[in-house]
Each structure stands twice: as structure tokens, then as C-alpha cells.
């Protein structure tokens, strides 16, 4: 990403931003998939369960993430959906190197992140940034907005020379839709949506290639969510960013993603373009998930197929044998208990991890 781009688009907000916005509207949702930036191979994270205080012994493992494969190309958005406890947050933490995987690889531009240290790791962290879910917890309450946004430049001093930092901070604030005069204010003086913009500016300051968005809008008011989603889209178009967008809100994920992966209990059960996954879901869990999403248009009410799942998600400390979903699945047979289904295309045009995969339209299409 060229240095000048952030500066120029912010320096002339009226003209430049207008143009960027109209371009954005025109260019979405078509993306030309670029080269592979980030590749996750068979990623696993098992947290040990311990007992005892003096003599700690491991009594088992929570298989939070159990064999996840993902690919993120330059300029695209991959959505990762799943319910609470499915392991999507743990995947995020491993991707931004806050958590070390138990096994598996995270390849960034061909290099294994799990083996990085020192300078290489620092460079990786600069290029792969994160936006957090909770705009109240993710900003240091004792730092001014300006200090928060500019902190990355103290760590990576080569990005911005000391002299022009204040100006660049204000340009960044302007770019994400904040009043640059508020540079000396503290986070608690802003609303949730504005705080999330501060978090976005902090990530942008490092001029990253990839931003991992961990539920970036789910803590915001409905009327503010769309503002932030649009901002993320604009920034992607302006700076050529790639997003890994993690969320439980299926509508938002569909809106922003080029490709979508559905997670259940530590592994991915279905993957494809948004049209494939939402239009013709092949895995029973995806189908149930989609059928549970309430629609907000009165004329679509009742048109959707109702699949009510029974029971709860099993504990990841003791997951079912074979297929993880079989305990709640209406299609389960003997084979599901013995053989874990591979994530492959069984003739639906996109991969799903079900022995009895079968495309089925669940949500009404107009």
C-alpha cells in the first residue's frame, strides 16, 4: 500500500471520499481474486483442562479449534460464521499471533507464521491487523484518541516520521469519519460507533494488508452497524485490503463477504461463495442456521422453511465421535458416528463436511 494514498484521500475529503464512495458502490460486489495472502492448514488449538492446585495434572483437552483450513486472497473478504463456542474467536487470536496453535500451519505469503519470531513476527503483525468486537474494551481508557491511533508508529517507527504524526493521525481520523479536532479526547467521550471507528483507524495506521475483523459490528446499534460496514467496504476498495470477517450475524456476513465458511464445534462444515452457501446450502447445520435467521420483511415471513434444531451444542471438551453435528442432525446414520466426514465437494459445486450432503434452498429468494 503506497504511503500517499491514506494522506491524499483524507486531505481532500469532500472530493476524494465522494469519488471513492461512488466507485465503491459501482465496483461491489465483483472482486478479482488476487494471489493467496493467507493460508491456514489443518489448524488446531487444544486447551488443556487441568485439575489440582499444587500438583497440576491434565485431565483432558478442550478442542476449541480442531482442523481448520482457510484461504484468503488479496483484496477479498472471507466470512467466517458460527455460533458462540464454535472456535471462531480462537481462530482469530491465532491468526494475529496472540495465541499459539497446538498444530497446523498459518502461511502468510508462503511463510509459516507459527515459526516466526523477532523481526519477521513484528513485520507480520504490522501487515495483519485486528479489529475487536467490543468498542468499549478495546481502547485504553487512559490514552487520548490521538495516542491510540498513533501508537503503532511508535512501534513501527519507519511508517511515519515523528514530525508529521499529528497531522497524519488527524487525516486518519477524518478518513474513518471522526472529527479530527477530537484528537485529544478520551475514548469514553465517544459513542460505540465512533469508538469502533477509532479502532479501525488504529488498525489502518499500520498500513496492513489483511485486517481480521472479529465481530466488528455486533456490539453496535442497528442504525450504526451499516455505517461501519460501509466504512469497511470503502477502506477495502481504497487500500486494497483483505478481510477475514468473523461474525455470528449471517446477514452482515453475506453482505460483506465474497466467500463464506461455516464453523461448527471447532471445524468448518461448509465453504463456498456467498451465493453457494446461502443459496444452496448442502450441510444440515448450515441449513438449520439459515432457517433460524428471522427475516425482517413482512412479505417474506412464513415463506422460509423451518428447521428447528433440538438440544444444544455439545461440549468441545468431549465432542461426539465421527461427525460433530450428528447429535443434533436429522440425517444421522451409523456411518456418522464412526467416520468424520471430509470437507469435500459431493456434487453440490462447493465443499461441505457431510456424508449425506444435499443442496437445499432454505431462505426464500425473491
Amino acid at each position, binding site marked *: 500500500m503506497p504511503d500517499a494514498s491514506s494522506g491524499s484521500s483524507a486531505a481532500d475529503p469532500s472530493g476524494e471520499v465522494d469519488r471513492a464512495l461512488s466507485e465503491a458502490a459501482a465496483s461491489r460486489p465483483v472482486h478479482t481474486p488476487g494471489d493467496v495472502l493467507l493460508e491456514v492448514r489443518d489448524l488446531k488449538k487444544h486447551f488443556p483442562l487441568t485439575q489440582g492446585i499444587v500438583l497440576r495434572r491434565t485431565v483432558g483437552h478442550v478442542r476449541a479449534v480442531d482442523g481448520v483450513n482457510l484461504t484468503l486472497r488479496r483484496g477479498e473478504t472471507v466470512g467466517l460464521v458460527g455460533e458462540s463456542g464454535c472456535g471462531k474467536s480462537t481462530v482469530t*487470536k491465532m491468526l494475529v499471533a496472540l495465541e499459539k496453535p497446538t498444530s497446523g500451519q498459518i502461511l502468510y505469503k508462503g511463510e509459516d507464521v507459527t515459526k516466526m519470531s523477532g523481526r519477521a513476527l513484528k513485520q507480520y503483525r504490522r501487515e495483519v491487523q485486528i479489529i475487536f468486537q467490543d468498542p468499549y474494551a478495546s481502547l*485504553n481508557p487512559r490514552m487520548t484518541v490521538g495516542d491510540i491511533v498513533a501508537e503503532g508508529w511508535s512501534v513501527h517507527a519507519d511508517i511515519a516520521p515523528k514530525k508529521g504524526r499529528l497531522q497524519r493521525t488527524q487525516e486518519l481520523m477524518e478518513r474513518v469519519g471522526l472529527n479530527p479536532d*477530537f484528537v485529544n479526547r478520551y475514548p469514553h467521550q465517544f459513542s460505540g460507533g465512533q469508538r469502533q471507528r477509532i479502532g479501525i483507524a488504529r488498525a489502518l495506521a499500520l498500513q496492513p494488508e489483511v485486517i481480521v475483523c472479529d465481530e466488528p459490528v455486533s456490539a453496535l446499534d442497528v442504525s450504526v452497524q451499516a455505517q461501519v460496514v460501509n466504512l469497511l467496504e470503502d477502506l477495502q476498495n481504497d487500500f486494497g485490503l483483505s478481510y477475514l470477517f468473523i461474525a455470528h450475524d449471517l446477514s452482515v456476513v453475506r453482505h460483506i463477504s465474497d466467500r463464506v465458511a461455516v464453523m461448527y464445534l471447532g471445524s468448518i462444515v461448509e465453504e463456498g461463495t456467498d451465493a453457494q452457501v446461502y443459496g444452496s446450502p448442502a450441510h444440515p447445520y448450515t441449513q438449520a442456521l439459515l432457517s433460524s435467521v428471522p427475516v425482517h420483511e413482512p412479505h417474506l415471513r412464513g415463506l422460509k422453511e423451518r428447521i428447528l434444531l433440538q438440544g444444544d451444542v455439545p461440549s468441545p471438551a468431549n465432542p461426539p465421535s465421527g461427525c460433530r453435528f450428528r447429535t443434533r442432525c436429522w440425517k444421522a446414520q451409523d456411518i456418522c458416528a464412526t467416520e468424520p466426514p471430509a470437507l469435500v465437494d459431493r456434487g453440490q459445486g462447493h465443499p461441505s463436511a457431510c456424508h449425506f450432503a444435499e443442496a437445499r434452498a432454505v431462505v426464500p429468494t425473491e
Partner: protein
Amino acid sequence: MSDPKLTAVGHDEVGAGGVTGTHDEEAGARQNSLWSDAWRQLRRNVLFWIGAVLGLLFVGMALLPAVFARGVDPRSCNLSNSNAKPSAEHWFGFDQQGCDYLANVVYGARNSLIIGLLAVIVILVLGVLVGAISGFYGGVTDSILSRIADIFYALPLILGALVVLRSGILGRGVVAVAIALALFGWMTAMRLVRSQVIAIKSSDYVAAARAMGASDARILVRHILPNAVAPVLVYATITIGILIAAEATLTFLGVGLQPPAISWGLQIDTGQSLLRTAPHAVLFPSLILTLTVMAFVLMGDALRDALDPKQRS
């Protein structure tokens, strides 16, 4: 919505929403920082003002004792006045040696405050340092440091200081008493800092700093400590009062300051044998001692109320 309106959205936001919190329905007005916020809260607390005025009074005594002693030298004594009762001329009366008691009590403030402040500074340095390292690095480091703190906990403050002072390693001066007290008083500060650091370590903003490649030192100094310091300050303020009382206790027990030093503990010690004939000899130093301790406890309490994060959103 037409297109120009759409593009205005980003800037509209600022116009409409420079105002604070939609988070809770009782959001506050504009403030600068959490500290100035706390100060606003503090300013309206009557108990804080009582503590602050008392505290200033005693600090004034320590700095300018001659003014408060009405120009009387505590060491110019006249035995004929021995144990004389308080009068309009001599508000606190005289001690056994016939010295003006007001002057003696006033001059005692300096030693008490110096010991209290010095000890608290040592406690803060030790507590923050050990607590931060222990909480931040965890694991074996934490186990070892925490067990060391436990060992010191096993000895009560007064008993520990008593043993050290009796051994005579440090001598019997003001500094010696302060260090002896600090040596057995830093553990609570350390535990406070440690638990704060552990809590803040797992916050999202620390994760964000780590994710941008910030060093451990930077995370500790810029993110964790500024947020961990509030409860420690509260504790330190209250502890000054407790340490002043502890100094008096040690001196009273005969292991603290020695005559001819002037100290409230010494005065109470001498006065106790004369309790029946000259009750004022115990009453005045005790009263002033109590008020001093109270001043710091009140200020600390008010500070805790003002800094309590539960009152903030």
C-alpha cells in the same frame, strides 16, 4: 436517500454525536480524562475536604513547626512548670520536664510524617515492581515472588519491624524505622498490583497493542500500569495513616525513635505513667495522632469512591 446525503454520513456523525455515551442512559457530560473525572467527584465529597484540610494542617506543622508552636522552642523547659495543666497561655500545658507541650506535639509531626511518607514510597516502589513482574510474567516467576510475599505476610507488620529494629542492623533513626516498616508492609500493595495487572493483561486493548507488535515493556508502561495504579494509590493514601500509627507504636514499645528525638510515640510512652496526675500528656499526642491517621484514611476512602470504576460506564 440521495447520493450526496450518503456521502455526508461520515461527517454528519461527528456533528450529531460528539456528545458522549449512548452506552448507558445516564451518560455524563464532557470531561477530559478519567482523572479529571475523578477529581470532579472528589471535589464534592465533604469527607475528602475534611481529610484534606486536616492533612494540610499536619503537613504545615511538619514544614513550619515554629509557626504552629507560636514561636515557643520545644526544648526550652522550666522544671517548675512540670506537668502543669493547659491554660490560655499554654494550650496543651507542660510535660514532666516543664517544656511547652504544644510545641512538643507540633514538632513531633515532622518525624511522623517523614516516616509515613518515606515508608509508603518504599512500599509503592517494591509493591509496584514486584507486583507488576509477578502479574505480567506469571508462571514460575509469579509463584516464587508470591511465595516470598507470603513469607513476609506470616510476620505481622509491628512484630517484623520490631525484630529488625531490635537487631540494630539499621540503627534507630527515622530512615531505619521507615525501612523497617516498609519491609513488612509492601505485600498488600504487591498483591493489589498483581491482581490488577492480571486482569488488565487480558483486556482487548492490551491484545491490540500486542497485535501491533508492541514490546512487553511498552505494554506494561503504557497500557497496564496506568490502568492498574488507581487502587494502589487509594491503598497508599490509607497506608500513610496506618504507618504513622505503626511508628508511634514502635516508639512506644521502645524500639523506634529514641530521645532526644521528638515523636508522638515517645510522648505517649512518657505520658502513660502520669495518666492519673497529668492526663493531658497522653491525651494531646494521641488526639493529634488519631486525627492524622484519620485524615489520610478519609482522603483514601474518598479517593476510592472517586476512582471506583463501577460508578463509571
